């Protein structure tokens, strides 16, 4: 049965969080936005190559969700994973260096933008096959349950993954075995140029929870606190051994599908409407309205993350290439 969202609690979520936590969320969202803006710039300058899918506009989903997790919880993501990886605590230097293909990159230059990985922070990877990450999250959930550990596995995927068999099989298995998995669908309305209603018969994506007998909720993915609240609930449930949940976060990607997408399939008007709901401006507005922090403090955070990202770019640029002699290294465990 679909879990009805408690609007009242969501609206007052600001009040229940302390200032440090609110600012931490603001900082992370601002960091991701700045990271993505710089990535776009570096791509245009030819420093980043291959495919590069930016997360600008969707920051509230990764940040709200990961803020609700413990450090030792696992996160699995897609090729649009810079945001999740940074939110989980990755060093922006290592992420940017990976985008540059450098030896100091988080995957030592072998992965690129789509394949970030850092087991130390339990960021279990970005995967470029749509739907490919869900079974992995189920397996991580199984490992947790097996070892009777308190963690959860949190899996992000797009609306485009729902028509894949892997989605349905993963929800079924996680539910059947009551595994501690949180499935977070980032519904940004498009899979490349295909509108969600042209890809899946049930547009209310959270309702796929119902046949698989788990709670399903739709949250405002432009509101970090709404996401935070839903994931907190899902995580508590999972930790208590009550099994998986499906969360549909409704959001919007501000840029094209990838850096090479001219975005001809949607209107400028639609884009403007969503830009007005910018998750970062949204949180900023509310923090100021409730007089929780001063404008100067938020400006200071923006300036700080700007410096962090500039430093990451400098680090990436100055880092060495992976040595040619190591091309065949790590094909097998040595």
């Amino acid at each position, binding site marked *: 049965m679909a879990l009805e969202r408690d609007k009242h609690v969501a609206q007052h979520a600001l009040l229940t969080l302390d200032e440090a936590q609110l600012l931490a969320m603001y900082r992370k969202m601002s960091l991701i936005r700045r990271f993505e803006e710089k990535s776009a710039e570096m791509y245009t300058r030819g420093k980043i*190559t*291959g*495919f590069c899918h930016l997360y600008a506009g969707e920051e509230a989903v990764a940040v709200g969700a990961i803020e609700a997790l413990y450090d030792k919880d696992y996160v699995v993501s897609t090729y649009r994973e810079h945001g999740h990886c940074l939110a989980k605590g990755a060093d922006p230097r290592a992420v940017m260096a*990976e985008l540059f*293909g*450098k030896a100091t990159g988080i*995957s030592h*230059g*072998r*992965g*690129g933008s*789509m*394949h970030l990985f850092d087991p130390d922070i339990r960021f279990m990877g970005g*995967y*470029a*096959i*749509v*739907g*490919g990450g869900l079974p992995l999250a189920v397996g991580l959930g199984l490992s947790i349950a097996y070892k009777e550990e308190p963690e959860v596995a949190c899996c992000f995927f797009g609306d*485009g*993954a729902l*028509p*894949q*068999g892997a989605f349905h099989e993963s929800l079924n298995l996680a539910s059947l075995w009551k595994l501690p998995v949180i499935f977070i669908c980032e519904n940004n309305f498009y*899979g*490349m*140029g*295909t509108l969600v209603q*042209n*890809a*899946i018969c049930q547009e209310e994506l959270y309702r796929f929870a119902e046949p698989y007998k788990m709670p399903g909720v739709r949250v405002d993915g432009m509101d970090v606190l709404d996401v935070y609240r839903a994931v907190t609930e899902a995580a508590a449930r999972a930790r208590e051994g009550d099994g998986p949940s499906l969360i549909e976060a409704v959001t919007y990607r501000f840029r094209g599908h990838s850096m090479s997408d001219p975005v001809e*399939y949607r209107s400028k008007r639609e884009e403007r409407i969503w830009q007005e709901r910018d998750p970062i401006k949204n949180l900023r507005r509310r923090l100021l309205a409730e007089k929780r922090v001063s404008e100067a403090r938020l400006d200071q955070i923006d300036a700080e993350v700007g410096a962090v990202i500039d430093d990451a770019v400098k680090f990436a640029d100055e880092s060495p*290439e*992976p040595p*040619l002699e190591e*091309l*065949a290294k790590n*094909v097998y465990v040595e």
Partner: protein
Amino acid sequence: MSQITYREALNQALREELDRDERIFIMGEEVGYFGGAFKVTDGLLAIYGEKRVRDTPISELTFVGAGIGAAMGGLRPIVELMTVNFGLLALDQIVNNAAKIHYMFGGKAKVPIVIRAPQGAGHQLGAQHSQNLEAYFMHCPGLRVVIPATPADAKGLLKTALRQEDPVIFLEHESLYHVKGEVPDGEHLVPFGKANVLREGKDLTLVSYSKCVYDTLAAAQELENMGTDAEVIDLRTLNPLDLDTVLESVKKTGKAIVVYEGWRTGGAGAEIAAQLYEKAFDHLDAPVERVATMDTPMPYNARLEKAALPSPADIISAAERIV
């Protein structure tokens, strides 16, 4: 004749075939409104409508399987996989159904489907987006495997594919879409199982297909400057495989190098070398060389990717080893 790109040649073949046979339709991800991830189907939706140019969800297993079912139901589907990498999700349908249905049901059913898939490396797309999987399909009896290098062959082989009664895996190289060449206007059919001798030579046989044909031709030119006269053969289809043309050449030259972008181990080159040992052992003056992609997942880093891929220089080194 007109000078058009590999992409335009494919698009032209699709138009001509859609016009020719009402049973032909196209389906796949982004083939309609988006015009195809590589723009091969660009403009077709506007002409033929949604019935014949159908956008599908990201459901490779199911839309490939549906294509197989539609073929059994009397249609002639062209299923586009956005790239061959995603075709792995449909491998069960391709191997367990498409390849077997005719045989397993005693010849009573047919699956005349054409599955088109771009493939190949060289664009820093990382390990999951840079594969050449022709050997997977070549390994499986029941599938025809077509792999054109030139715009003219792209058109002529695709048109022939749509006249086959067997399932055809049609592999296009992502780096070839912009390559231009002379393409015959109108009806142009290139038969399956007929390799193309692109350059005659007496000292060495270079066997290749798909994008590596161009690297091979470049190497042959270089070898000529170095005094080695190389013959270059483009196989064009891997199943059926035209070994006769290769044998003919090897009988003359006594030496062969197979050049391909798949992984070296267990690739098409292994099969061709094995067949040469079986059928031309007495004619060979040196071991058959393979120039292929290193046995590693493809690295993202540009320099590493380049080093992993076969190059004209690698072909020349191989030639130096055996000539």
